């Protein structure tokens, strides 16, 4: 689009606005719903204007949760989710950085074989191996624990592969210069390779954090103790209240709170990797 004609610009903006509205509308509904009084939903129509019960609903969910539906306070579930997501993210980053480093910079027997072994696990996401994994975790007594929530999800072929590709673009002379400068492998990794990977790490951090945060099936399977419920699966518990209708105004308050941390992570990390993009460019 070289020309900027008023009409085509108007059309472009209209299409974009329609797109944004389409995406944002459900979010808006969730926020509006979370501000309504308890009886509001029984009328069968969804209110489009915010109600006046926001503070009350959010306080209820944060402090006590829906104990009748077996869900602990949202504050606690958010904490659990955060621990799990961070453990998965940091664990995945550390493991994949180290394994990519090993695969790219060291000549060891069956190097290619190990690389392919890691690569093949891309085809085995959690859902495929969930039964054997559950058996292993149960036998190790890790049900209802943070270790059980995070460790089975911690290895990442994708991140390893991405770091491998990145490391291969780092000029070999840098390694040689570092060797002449007296840096051993680990020092090279820490002083040269890690700082160069900051942008990649930031990008992967966002992706992996959201991946960890959004885990649903696995926490649902291995947590029976409500102290370890994560927020994404906790919401599901709330909607399946055994007696009576789900209390949508409260559920929506929990939904809004559950959606906030990933948004914050994206906002924060975006600044970091925009900075990374403008500064480390060679």
């Amino acid at each position, binding site marked *: 689009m070289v020309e900027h004609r008023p009409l085509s610009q108007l059309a472009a903006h209209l299409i974009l606005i329609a797109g944004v509205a389409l995406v944002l509308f459900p979010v808006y509904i969730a926020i509006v719903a979370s501000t309504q009084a308890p009886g509001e939903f029984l009328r069968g129509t969804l209110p489009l204007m915010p109600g006046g019960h926001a503070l009350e609903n959010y306080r209820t969910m944060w402090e006590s949760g829906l104990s009748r539906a077996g869900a602990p306070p949202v504050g606690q579930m958010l904490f659990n989710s955060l621990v799990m997501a961070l453990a998965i993210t940091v664990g995945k980053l550390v493991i994949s950085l180290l394994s990519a480093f090993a695969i790219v910079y060291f000549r060891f027997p069956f190097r290619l074989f190990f690389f392919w072994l890691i690569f093949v696990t891309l085809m085995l996401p959690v859902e495929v191996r969930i039964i054997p994994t559950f058996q292993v975790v149960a036998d190790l007594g890790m049900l209802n624990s943070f270790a059980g929530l995070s460790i089975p999800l911690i290895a990442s072929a994708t991140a390893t592969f991405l770091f491998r590709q990145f490391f291969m673009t780092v000029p070999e*002379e840098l390694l040689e*210069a570092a060797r*002449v400068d007296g840096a051993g492998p680990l*020092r090279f990794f820490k002083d040269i390779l890690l700082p160069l990977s900051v942008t990649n790490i930031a990008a992967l951090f966002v992706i992996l954090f959201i991946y960890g945060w959004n885990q649903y099936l696995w926490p649902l399977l291995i947590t029976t103790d409500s102290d370890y419920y994560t927020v994404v699966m906790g919401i599901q518990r709330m909607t399946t209240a055994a007696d009576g209708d789900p209390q949508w105004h409260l559920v929506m308050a929990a939904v809004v709170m559950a959606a906030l941390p990933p948004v914050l992570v994206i906002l924060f990390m975006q600044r970091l990797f925009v900075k990374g993009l403008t500064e*480390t460019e060679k």
Partner: protein
Amino acid sequence: MMASIKLEGLEKTYPGGVQAVKGVDLEVADGEFVVLVGPSGCGKSTLLRMVAGLETISAGALYIGERRVNELEPAQRDIAMVFQNYALYPHMTVFDNLAYGLKNRGFKRDEIRRRVEEAARMLEIEAFLPRKPRQLSGGQRQRVAMGRALVREPAVFLFDEPLSNLDAKLRVQMRVEIKRLQRRLKTTSLYVTHDQLEAMTLGDRLVVLNGGRIEQVGTPMEIYARPASLFVATFIGSPAMNLLPLGALLSGPGAASHGALLGDLPPGTGILGIRPDALRLEAPHGPHLTLSATLELFEAAGAESHLHVRLAGSGQPLVIRTAGQPRMTEGEMLRFHVTRDALHPFHRETGRRLDDTLKTKEQAA
């Protein structure tokens, strides 16, 4: 602090079976500046990287000073290297780039600061110390790369085509600076280049490599004046040395007079080498050959001109270098002269020089 380098039968065979270096013997004296020169693929970079410790040594022994260093890591060999693409750490400031090697060796902070500042002053990069490499021009990066080698105060400097990424003007300037710096520091240096002019002007001695072997070792002028083989003869000097089959002179016009003068050539001579500047348009004193040829192409290069001619009779192409801008037209018939002592006789099969009293090792073998 300083040291000599000794290479004894150094060989490099890659896992695939390719032999890049086929037995090189060389001694570099303390404080000497030796240039390894040759076409791409001749093994010169491999040889340098073996000395640096970046390539393993397949056979032979390598000594730096009195120490055998075959199995030592690069950092333990007391060497510093300047890479072709500079290999500066992009995320570090110039100061940190220079300081990194010293930090890893556990130097004290003020000692590091002192050395970095001294090197920066020597290379006139003090103003750039807080900058990142990407904020520098090619020439400035080159200086930083040199500085990184300098601060270490190593026993040996290794240069791997350090000027080949610079533009022509900067290259000449940096060449002079490297030479000046090496004179001042008197650090033993090995320098790899494919540029024969760079080699000639920089080195105390030249090592001409071809196909993983040494063709000739000597001072630049020795090599220029008495190339040991056809390969060296054509590689060193620009325009390249003219090669004339002896038969082309012993037949055709003037053959009889040529025969008398060429009678004392060593037996086996098949090819005569003649430098383009040894072909004169005016007749010299003393015994000389006179040849006639047609001018095909006239190249004016400012202070000098290159005449591309074809020898009458045999049609052999020759290049003549002459000072100034002689007035002549293309297609014209020229007469020119060459003295007997400007002829380099080479063996018709081996291509080795024949009148060499100082025989190289390979000839003896």
